[in-house]
């Protein structure tokens, strides 16, 4: 407490310099918090969108590794490369047992469908498409597509009959409108006519240009694969459980089960890089704030050389003196952090209130997404305190080594 009292009198003795140093730290902490809130907010928003639009776990009729070849069983040394699993026309074997098993334990809902590759024709135009056969009532529970309709609706599929809903862009490319009848051709050669009963716009061009939804039974007829299911999509109550669920499903069913995290690995890695950049910038800001502290503590140690000599002659140790000046740096860092928190909070609040319209993407964004996280405040203050401790330590170490006799002799 004694050293603390002395530290306070030292920094209180130079109001303006202290104010500048405190403000330096405060601005650093404040902007770091504001920036982190914005970065984290947009990241959360992005991931939320991923989680909302994508199946959390998708099981397809593929295997992660090619099936073991008979030759491998017969000859121990044989290694076989380059094989691709043949597409099994039966899709997922025994799908209803698999669905029942999944339903029994997965904490969420699932939808089973048949996804086939084909072509859609209209008035001489042809577009390659993924034709997805689904049960509307199941699909509704796992997919957000229901909300993305610009014309018609998803419900039109429920009515039965040969209806299709497709991406708006696909319809544009075909030159077809709502109510027109298009012809779908599957890769196995089956054809069937469907009436466009709905157009959707998800914002993902791959889906808007390349997906059409029909009833599961129609897809099975089109591809001539009665009762086949090759695509099970699961929506979980807790999206973070997806990898575990996927692992368990894959282990039991043998089919490739992909969690959304795995499907978006590249994007999520980009976010990690983005965060690394953010932390680098935060560290740089703190370094600059640290210079302010270094400057003031350095000045104090120079001006207080005589006082250091007095205190050492009185019986203060080198360690005491070091602590004293580190504490002065820390006190400035602490005051700056506190002020920076207020600044950061205000900044985040202002950012969260900025409104703008971005209708081009279809999804209108009315406010900047910001995240309120205690972690940002802790981290920013932690960085600031670390930098102020270092900034105080460097001049403190020099000051502490000062030989009292040199100063006393020089002063008399």
């Amino acid at each position, binding site marked *: 407490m004694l050293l603390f009292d002395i530290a306070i009198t030292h920094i209180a003795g130079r109001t303006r310099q202290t104010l500048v140093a405190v403000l330096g730290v405060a601005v650093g902490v404040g902007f770091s918090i504001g920036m982190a809130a914005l970065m984290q907010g947009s990241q959360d928003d992005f991931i939320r969108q991923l989680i909302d639009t994508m199946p959390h776990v998708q099981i397809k009729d593929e295997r992660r590794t090619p099936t073991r070849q008979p030759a491998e069983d017969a000859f121990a040394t044989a290694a076989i490369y380059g094989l691709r699993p043949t597409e099994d026309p039966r899709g997922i074997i025994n799908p209803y047992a698999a669905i029942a098993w999944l339903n029994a334990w997965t904490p969420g809902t699932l939808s089973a469908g048949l996804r086939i590759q084909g072509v859609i024709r209209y008035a001489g135009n042809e577009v390659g498409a993924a034709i997805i056969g689904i049960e509307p009532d199941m699909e509704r529970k796992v997919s957000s597509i229901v909300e993305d309709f610009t014309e018609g609706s998803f419900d039109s599929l429920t009515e039965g009959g040969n209806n299709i809903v497709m991406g708006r862009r696909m319809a544009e490319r075909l030159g077809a409108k709502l109510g027109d009848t298009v012809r779908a051709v599957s890769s196995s050669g089956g054809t069937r006519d469907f009436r466009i009963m709905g157009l959707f716009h998800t914002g993902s061009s791959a889906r808007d240009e390349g997906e059409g939804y029909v009833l599961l039974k129609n897809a099975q007829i089109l591809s001539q694969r009665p009762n086949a299911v090759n695509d099970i999509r699961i929506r979980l109550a807790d999206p973070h459980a997806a990898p575990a669920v996927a692992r368990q499903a894959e282990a039991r069913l043998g089919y490739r089960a992909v969690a959304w995290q795995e499907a978006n690995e590249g994007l999520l890695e980009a976010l990690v890089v983005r965060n690394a950049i953010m932390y680098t910038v935060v560290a740089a800001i703190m370094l600059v704030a640290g210079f302010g502290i270094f400057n003031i503590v350095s000045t104090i140690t120079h001006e207080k050389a005589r006082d250091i000599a007095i205190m050492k002659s*009185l019986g203060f*140790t080198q360690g005491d003196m070091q602590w004293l000046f580190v504490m002065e740096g820390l006190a400035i860092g602490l005051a700056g952090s506190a002020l920076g928190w207020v600044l950061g909070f205000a900044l985040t609040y202002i950012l969260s209130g900025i409104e703008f319209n971005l209708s081009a993407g279809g999804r209108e964004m009315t406010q900047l997404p910001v995240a309120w996280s205690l972690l940002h405040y802790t981290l920013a203050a932690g960085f600031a305190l670390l930098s102020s401790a270092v900034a105080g330590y460097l001049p403190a170490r020099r000051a502490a080594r000062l030989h009292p*006799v040199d100063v006393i002799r020089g002063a008399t």
Partner: protein
Amino acid sequence: MTSPMTEAPLIEARKLTRILPETVPVTLVHDIDLAVGRNEFLAITGPSGSGKSSLLYLLGLLDRPTSGALLVNGQDTAAMDEADLAHTRLSMMGFVFQFHFLLPEFTARDNIAIPMRKLGRLSRRQIDQRAEELLGSLGLGDHIDKRPDQLSGGQRQRVAVARALANDPAILLADEPTGSLDSKSSEQVFDTLSALVHERGKTVAMVTHDLDMANRADRRVHLVDGRIVPLDGAG
């Protein structure tokens, strides 16, 4: 003049030498043999540059000798580390320099409280009480809450003496404590030191230019060029 053989002197220098390791080495003091006994008022005199201050810094553990030994209470200080030396200064030594050397931001009371708080033997209330008593006994009862820049030179020097006495040290080391004072203030400070020895059983080692004062001390050593030389009858 000699301390009893049964009891080690308070501070004892044996062939104490201090050489500054400059490009041309500077000898500050050379082969000093000196024992400072308990309850003794020792005066150190000598021409300017003769090494009086240097000797006092060595005796006060502010500087370490190049060779020779310094014993405090019979214990060799060579074995002590920086913290031991600091603690010895804090608990049993008090310094008064020519210049007052008070901490400018603190009041007289707080300046005196600092070494007591550092030692930590008394409560805050006891510390403040003792600080005020010390100031009162040095005739500064009305100046307790003044900062050094609000005091006269003589008053500051007496605050410095009060601070040196804060932890009730066994020895007070004073380097020309009256050097910057007028004759009246000088007398006051000298009387204070003298009273410490003769009324309160303390030991004082004082560097002074004032031969009159030096002769009023119990003993006087004379330095020339860093060596102790015999006094020609005057002492």
